[in-house]
């Protein structure tokens, strides 16, 4: 079988590439290894609705709850600070199985052919076309989009990018507890069934971690991400850290009586394009495969959709690699991730991470008690990170 474009992976990047290329009139095959789109995907559950409107009909987007507040929680030693940020619009919680299925369905409606339960094993150039080898046989295409996620085995085998290392990977574990809708509303004090909240947690003990809580219609998701090198150095497992986080935050009470419905894990890349190539010949990489996750805001779906759209256009118009990579860099979402990396690299250093969580905690506690004597400001550190944060210098 011969297609104009084969897209590998029906996640946010792959489906966005497929719908873009199919809308442009190309004959597109979308390959997904899971039994259905989303069934192999793990992520934080908060999305920005605006991220989808450029390519999808968002009137039917399957969301769980509209996020009314994002709570930021800082935990250091015994100090704890909680800041609740009121959200006007645009943020919602979503479950990946429903969301990814919806995106793939829209790609199918635009003309793409979706085949599931099929893993792509390799991509080889043969003359002017590509042989895409799968565990169910081979297909041919003029152009290929690799939106294969963080474990980008095909991209690595084709020597387009290297593997991650423990220095630039965060290991995340997540638990989803199911409860009925009324009970969820009661426990969080929601006045309506579509009202929701999400928490971002930064903690320093027993190891530095970034935690989260998301509220689905009938479930609560809790998780924690820990830099992989810290897990290795401290010889601690990620689920041990999550159990500690739950204990310290009293989350066991919050999910009391609820049954654990799902346990999952995901590696979050903290490195990638443009340090890695995003293209080779007419093969275009997008999303997690080139590390497009914004770890400061926990947003991977937005950059995945944005880069997928660029990859879809590239495959439709047969871009040269230099053009594809410069178009990626012109994209606001992609640029945000790329520009954030030097600061993220600094902040995931244990010493810096602990310093900020403790200092912000001490500042806010000082404000409450009118006593700032505990606050120790390291002005050179602050200035360096501030300048990195606003993009004055690059690392």
């Amino acid at each position, binding site marked *: 079988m011969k297609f104009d474009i084969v897209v590998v992976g029906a996640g946010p990047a792959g489906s966005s590439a497929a719908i873009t290329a199919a809308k442009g009139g190309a004959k597109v095959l979308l390959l997904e*290894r899971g039994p259905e789109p989303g069934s192999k995907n793990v992520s934080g559950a908060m999305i920005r609705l605006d991220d989808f409107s450029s390519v999808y009909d968002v009137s039917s987007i399957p969301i769980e709850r509209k996020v009314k507040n994002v709570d930021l929680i800082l935990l250091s030693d015994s100090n704890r600070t909680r800041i609740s940020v009121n959200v006007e619009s645009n943020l919602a919680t979503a479950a*990946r199985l429903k969301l990814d299925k919806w995106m793939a369905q829209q790609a199918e409606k635009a003309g793409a052919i979706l085949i599931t339960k099929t893993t792509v094993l390799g991509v080889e150039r043969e003359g002017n076309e590509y042989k895409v080898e799968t565990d169910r046989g081979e297909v041919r295409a003029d152009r290929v989009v690799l939106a294969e996620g963080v474990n980008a085995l095909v991209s690595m085998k084709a020597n387009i990018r290297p593997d991650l290392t*423990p220095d630039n990977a965060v290991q995340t574990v997540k638990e989803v507890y199911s409860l009925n809708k009324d009970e969820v509303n009661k426990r969080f004090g929601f006045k309506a069934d579509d009202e929701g909240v999400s928490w971002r947690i930064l903690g320093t003990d027993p190891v530095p971690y970034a935690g989260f809580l998301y509220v689905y219609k009938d479930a609560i998701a809790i998780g924690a991400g820990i830099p992989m090198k810290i*897990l290795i150095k401290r010889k601690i*497992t990620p*689920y041990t850290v999550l159990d500690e986080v739950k204990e310290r935050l009293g989350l066991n009470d919050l999910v009391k009586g609820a049954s654990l419905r799902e346990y999952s894990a995901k590696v979050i890349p903290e490195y990638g394009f443009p340090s890695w190539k995003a293209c080779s010949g007419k093969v275009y990489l997008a999303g997690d495969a080139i590390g497009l996750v914004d770890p400061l805001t926990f947003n991977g779906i937005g950059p995945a959709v944005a880069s997928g759209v660029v990859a879809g256009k590239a495959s439709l118009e047969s871009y040269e690699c230099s053009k594809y990579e410069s178009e990626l860099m012109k994209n606001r979402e992609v640029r945000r991730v790329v520009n954030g990396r030097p600061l993220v690299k600094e902040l995931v250093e244990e010493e810096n991470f602990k310093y900020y969580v403790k200092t912000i905690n001490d500042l806010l506690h000082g404000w409450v008690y009118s006593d700032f004597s505990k606050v120790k400001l390291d002005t050179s550190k602050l200035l360096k990170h501030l300048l990195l944060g606003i993009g004055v210098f690059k690392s």
Partner: protein
Amino acid sequence: MRVEEKLYTLRYKKDEQPHLAIIDPNKCLKCEEVNGVPQPCISVCPANVYSWINQRIVISYENCVECGACRIACPYSNISWKYPRYGLGIALRYG
């Protein structure tokens, strides 16, 4: 709750053919000498896939949640890491 109990929550279709393998067991011995126990692959794994028994790594691949951390963590690139065939393995409901 033990990890094994957490794993019961997952929909799972087992591939009869293991998708994970150790390439050279001698490198695991070397890793134990250098890094001690538990080795990096054991520390990062969220599903207790790896155990160190009688001086060798034993793999319970049927527990795997397909996150890829072990491959990244192994200092000797000694884990052959593939996906289960035909979409077998885990199937998430929420994700």
